[in-house]
């Protein structure tokens, strides 16, 4: 029997007992459908993170902190009167060792580092427009090179000498603007308290309104001039040493650096006693969590598929049983055991293909439907996020995996059929 006839016969055989085939196909369909949706959610969210990441830009900067001494050994750390700490407002970090101007020089000397800037962090008391209500607002640590997703206006100009700021979209109405465009060009008053407890205000021009997103969506983003002004005001009353300590520094490297080069840079920083984290690393940890969740969901779908695999074993064992005499006849007519094996495994693979192809197609339809429902409702706060996205490679992998499982399941009945003795089969009643 040639390959073409073998495939045709196998497909013909699978359609002979329709009910049984349909039931098995449904079992596979359920698994493939689930797998399509779970992997679609994985793709969707990761795509969103990726696009957010690329819209942020800043792929050539690294945030550097001093490696805490206790990172190396678990025991208590001896007190060192020369090392100073920064009181940090980061919730998880606790006290971290401060970066001083000496550190900045050390960092600048690390090979691969193009420039070093201290990361200035300021805490404003309030923001206010035209004497209206005062609102609390975080002032973002806008990493140089980072780009905001803007609803109106433009990005604060880092090199401009006047004070500029971009406000989050959610502040537009409370501050008293008619709409996003109305806020552009208006003056925002920022209240800030210095180290001596004196409150003063600084005015800045609103140049942009930022969209809510995964990062930087809820804090106001100042340009360098404004940030420096705020920092200076905040540092009034501090000793020079205290004023010139920072929680972290921002290091720029070659934008064309490869992953390996970035890794080398991190290793060099580590050797010098610093931890370097790129924006991608920070967001990458989101992806790790999402990937883990998707993995667990996919695991459930695969379990469903394994159960469906036993369905295939059962279906084909029944059809081997039913076709005992036919198999005997074909063997008596000179069909080799290998071809008989092929006949049944191809049938299994075909059933697997049917179930998975239908599952993938319906899964895509359901995902598209879910997207259009969710983007208008639950997920409207995250524009640009389509919860379920499909990439042809992973859909192909799903179909191939299911066909592989079906093949494995098919080998059990196929081996039984291939080993059948023609005489015994012909005598079978």
């Amino acid at each position, binding site marked *: *029997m040639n390959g073409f006839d073998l495939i045709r016969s196998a497909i013909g055989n699978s359609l002979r007992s329709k009910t049984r085939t349909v039931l098995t196909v449904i079992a596979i369909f359920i698994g493939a459908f689930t797998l399509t949706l779970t992997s679609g959610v994985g793709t969707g969210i990761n795509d969103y993170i990726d696009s957010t990441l690329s819209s942020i830009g800043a792929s050539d900067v690294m945030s550097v902190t001093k490696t805490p001494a206790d990172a190396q050994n678990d025991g208590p750390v001896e007190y060192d009167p020369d090392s100073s700490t920064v009181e940090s407002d980061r919730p998880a970090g606790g006290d971290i060792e401060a970066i001083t101007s000496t550190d900045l020089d050390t960092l600048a000397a690390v090979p691969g580092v193009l420039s070093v800037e201290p990361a200035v962090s300021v805490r404003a008391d309030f923001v206010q427009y035209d004497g209206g209500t005062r609102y609390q607002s975080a002032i973002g640590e806008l990493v140089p090179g980072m780009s905001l997703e803007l609803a109106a206006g433009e990005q604060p100009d880092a090199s401009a000498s006047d004070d500029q700021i971009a406000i989050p979209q959610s502040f537009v109405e409370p501050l008293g603007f008619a709409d996003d465009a109305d806020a552009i060009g208006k003056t925002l008053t920022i209240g800030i308290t210095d180290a001596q407890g004196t409150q003063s205000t600084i005015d800045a021009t609103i140049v942009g309104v930022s969209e809510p997103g995964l990062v930087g969506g809820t804090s106001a983003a100042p340009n360098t001039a404004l940030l420096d002004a705020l920092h200076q005001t905040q540092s009034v009353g501090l000793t020079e040493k205290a004023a010139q300590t920072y929680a972290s520094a921002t290091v720029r490297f070659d934008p064309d650096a490869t992953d390996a080069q970035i890794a080398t840079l991190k290793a060099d920083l580590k050797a010098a006693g610093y931890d370097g984290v790129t924006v991608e690393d920070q967001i990458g940890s989101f992806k790790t969590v999402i990937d883990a969740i998707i993995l667990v969901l996919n695991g459930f779908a695969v379990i469903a598929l394994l159960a469906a695999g036993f369905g295939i074993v059962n279906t084909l064992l029944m059809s081997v049983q039913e076709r005992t005499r036919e198999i005997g006849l074909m063997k008596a*007519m*000179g069909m080799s055991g290998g*071809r008989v094996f092929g006949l049944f495994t191809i049938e299994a693979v075909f059933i697997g293909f049917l179930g998975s192809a239908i599952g993938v197609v319906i899964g895509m339809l359901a995902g598209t439907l879910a997207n259009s429902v969710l983007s208008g409702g639950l997920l409207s706060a995250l524009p640009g996020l389509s919860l379920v996205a499909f990439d042809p490679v992973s859909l192909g992998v799903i179909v191939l995996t299911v066909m592989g499982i079906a093949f494995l399941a098919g080998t059990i009945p196929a081996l039984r059929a291939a080993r059948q003795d023609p*005489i015994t089969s012909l005598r079978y009643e």
Partner: protein
Amino acid sequence: MPVPILAARDVRKSYGRGPTRFDALKGVSLDIVEGESIAIVGKSGSGKSTLMHLLALLDQPSSGVVELNGRDAAGLRGSNLNTTRNQTFGFVFQQFFLTPGASVLDNVTLPLKIAGVRGAERRRRGMAALAQLELADKAKNKATDLSGGQKQRVVIARALVNDPSVIFADEPTGNLDTATGAVVEDILFDLNRSTGITLIIVTHDEELAARCDRRVYIRDGLVVDEATSAHHDAHRGHGAHAGAAEQPADGDGEVAA
């Protein structure tokens, strides 16, 4: 004496082991010459089918030798064995063994499909075999929709389609009424006469056996008697023995295709 196309040399076959061991054949020797028609006759359970399966190389003897064209068939393995089964033998079983859902033509061309013959060629040869058995108009029908006699003719067409040199028929008329049975018998003997195809018929029907050139009687796994039809022998004298070698090259010989 020409080399027999098939021969059994002291063939024994036992089933099972230990206390349940059963000797179905207890030392059978037999020569079958190309072009003859031979009946294997015996009561139920005497070992007729067992002997036929051994001669058709569907099973191996427990001891003894089955020879095909003078050579020990035990040497045939794997694809050689499959090719021999496919090209040299045609089978007509007591049950029809037709695939129910498939068309008459598909059933008939099954041996060609197994041989790997391409679709168009398969169709052509299948239709020729059906035409030979006057069933061409039923080619597209489902096999299940035919009468018993028609089914048996389909089975014969299937046995012939690969142009075999030997046809094995196990109780070919056992399922049919006398009149239909007679028609099927006529077809088989006509083929034997016109194309020189070797006919090996297993039966317990004395009348059918009487139409064969030779009868071998089996009881409890042993050959107890052999008889040669006087008039058949005279008739076949030229056909079977003198003409055995030339027969396949004969113009008529190709009609079976």
